[in-house]
């Protein structure tokens, strides 16, 4: 047992931090600004971070859930307007299904509550939303028939929307044709989908940890600069205690998240999902509160569009709901201990 990052993992973190600090948005007006966003997209493409879950010859992923979490945390910290989570989950889906990797950027589509990957049964498709669509031309979904669930794809229209200004979503065209992905002959097992969900929850948690770090740093900096009553507001205990609580909540979140990210590959699928559910319940609850604190510390400025605090809050609200909001995650935790609905742990 040694929960410290390895030298390689530290190097990965530093590399991701550098990209975010160099090319990420530093003001609300810069978000989605085409030239800079294209540069950030290219930098992430060049780094190969979206391919961390692509299969190696043995079928396992190129990198573990921990490496994915390390990148996700840095992107969250910088409120990076670049896709990562969606394409990573798409790559994982292809890997688990034994399908060759995509040559272009693609993402995944979830049900409209974002609680699980969207599944069409015998050609009947519920409403669905593709997440984290920046740079993607299609989304992966599951097509279910008598043989089981197989990986299918839907073209995107290129009409992004959604609450998160840094990671657009897109409502799928209900008439868009769905086709099986080439080579998707094998149905995914229950364990495959459980592990896929565990990865999705862990990456969302890592993004939440990063979002909390970014929000705390933003508010800490402001509290050191803004003066009232002749002193920096950060010198007042009322402000200090809010920020201390936010920092502590972020640290607790990081501890559960690192474990969940490790568990994705190291534990049996059911245990990996239980670890992810603990992390998601904790981080989802913490992140909303931490981002609300960041807005409060900014006072009136925090309630204006130009302040980055709401960008973090919006990002947190999306991540908190992905594949299981805190309430659903709590139900999964309880079910894992034999309490509540028998189907709580899926």
């Amino acid at each position, binding site marked *: 047992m*040694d929960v*410290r990052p390895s030298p390689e993992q530290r190097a990965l973190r530093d590399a991701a931090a550098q990209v975010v600090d160099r090319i990420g948005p530093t003001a609300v007006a810069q978000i989605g600004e085409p030239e800079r966003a294209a540069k950030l997209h290219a930098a992430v493409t060049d780094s190969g971070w979206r391919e961390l879950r692509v299969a190696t010859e043995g079928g396992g992923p190129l990198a573990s859930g921990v490496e994915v979490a390390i990148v996700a945390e840095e992107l969250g910290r910088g409120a990076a307007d670049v896709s990562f989570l969606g394409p990573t989950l798409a790559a994982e889906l292809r890997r688990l299904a034994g399908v060759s990797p995509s040559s272009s950027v693609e993402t995944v589509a979830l049900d409209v509550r974002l609680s699980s990957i969207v599944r069409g049964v015998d050609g009947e498709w519920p409403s669905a939303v593709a997440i984290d669509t920046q740079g993607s031309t299609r989304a992966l979904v599951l097509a279910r028939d008598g043989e089981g669930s197989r990986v299918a794809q839907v073209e995107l229209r290129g009409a992004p929307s959604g609450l998160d200004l840094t990671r657009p979503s897109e409502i799928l065209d209900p008439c868009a044709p769905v086709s099986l992905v080439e080579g998707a002959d094998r149905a995914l097992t229950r364990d495959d989908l459980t592990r896929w969900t565990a990865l999705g929850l862990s990456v969302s948690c890592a993004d939440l940890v990063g979002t909390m770090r970014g929000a705390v740093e933003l508010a800490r900096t402001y509290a050191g600069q803004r003066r009232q009553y002749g002193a*920096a507001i950060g010198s007042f205990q009322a402000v200090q205690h809010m920020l201390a609580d936010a920092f502590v909540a972020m640290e*607790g979140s990081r*501890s559960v998240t690192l474990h969940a990210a490790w568990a994705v590959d*190291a534990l049996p699928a059911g245990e990996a999902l239980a670890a992810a559910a603990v992390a998601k319940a904790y981080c989802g609850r913490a992140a909303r509160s931490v981002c609300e604190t960041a807005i409060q510390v900014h006072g009136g400025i925090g309630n204006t569009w130009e302040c980055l605090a709401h960008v973090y809050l919006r990002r947190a609200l999306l991540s908190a709901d992905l594949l299981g909001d805190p309430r659903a995650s709590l139900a999964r935790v309880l079910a894992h201990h034999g*309490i509540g609905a028998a189907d709580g742990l899926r």
Partner: protein
Amino acid sequence: MDFGDSPEEAEFRLRLRRWLVDNNPGLPASSTDDDYWAGMAAWHRSLYDAGFFGLAWPTQIGGHGLSSVFEVIVDEELAAAGAPPRPSLGYLVQGLLEHGGEEIRRRFLPGIVNGRDRWCQGFSEPDAGSDLASLRTRADRDGEDYVISGQKIWTSYSDEAEFCLLLARTDPGVAKHRGISAFAVPMRQAGIEQRPLRMINGVTKEFGEVHFDGARVPAANMIGEPGEGWALAMTVVSHEREPGELGYVARYAKMVNELCRRVRDDPGAYGPEQVSELGWAMVEVEMLRLHVRRRLSDRLGGISHGPEGSVDKLLMTWVEQAVGHAALAVGGIAHAGGDETWLNAYLYSRAQSVMGGTSQIQRNLVARRILGLPVS
């Protein structure tokens, strides 16, 4: 990054698990019972004799010189077996290791580690709580001894203790932080009077006042140099704030496991709000278990005595108080008399945001020493 056991760790875990099958003393679920504390001294010696205590401490003092992560394995296995937590002595040991000279370490540490000598901690005073440095208990030199006069309060298990780690003012003429020294004071002597205090959950063994009136301590029992008491106190309290040092994960997990069992045994008796309180307590306890793994892993690169302990203390407090709320929700209140175990567990949890430095003091430390916010 690896949360899994190495072969050596797995072997140790299995050995401990097997030992616990026959050696779990089966003390009450919560620590809010005088019988519980009465059994702890025997439990300490039993753990020590079997080679499961003081794992990360040096072999010279009775430890095992193992890596720090073995401690969390102990916590996890004690919790899984429903056994009592390991004795919370780490902060005392760290304080003496860091500040005591060769002689002090040789004389006192083996007895602390093997459970022969019980210690209490004489820090807080009626007028020196959060502002500990304003303490007024005096230690005046008299030949080869110091003579102690003053009053300590919130002193846990003082009536059971052979020694008190006492902070006293040895130099009233310098700035308040600089005039304090630390001593190992023998407790069984004239000139020391104990007055137990009853806590809000009815426990009488834990809390007390200690009055010193002419008690004597040999000058050779000073820990560190004259005036080093404040530095020692800061080392001690920084570790007193770490759940990895206290072994509390086992205590919380034991309570949550028992509450879980109650709900599983009679699921129809509990509504969604009660179950939800239990769920959050489970999440919080699991967070702390994993956080302790992380913090004890950090020690693999060398131990530090920094402000991170305040982060741990706040997390631990949130956990204990979430467990307290689950105890209240699921364990319930016996309005017509009867079993008050869970009510008492809840009441006891309120102390966690005060003992070892209030949550407000911890927030000050996090804000100033970690976040770098200015002092007003």
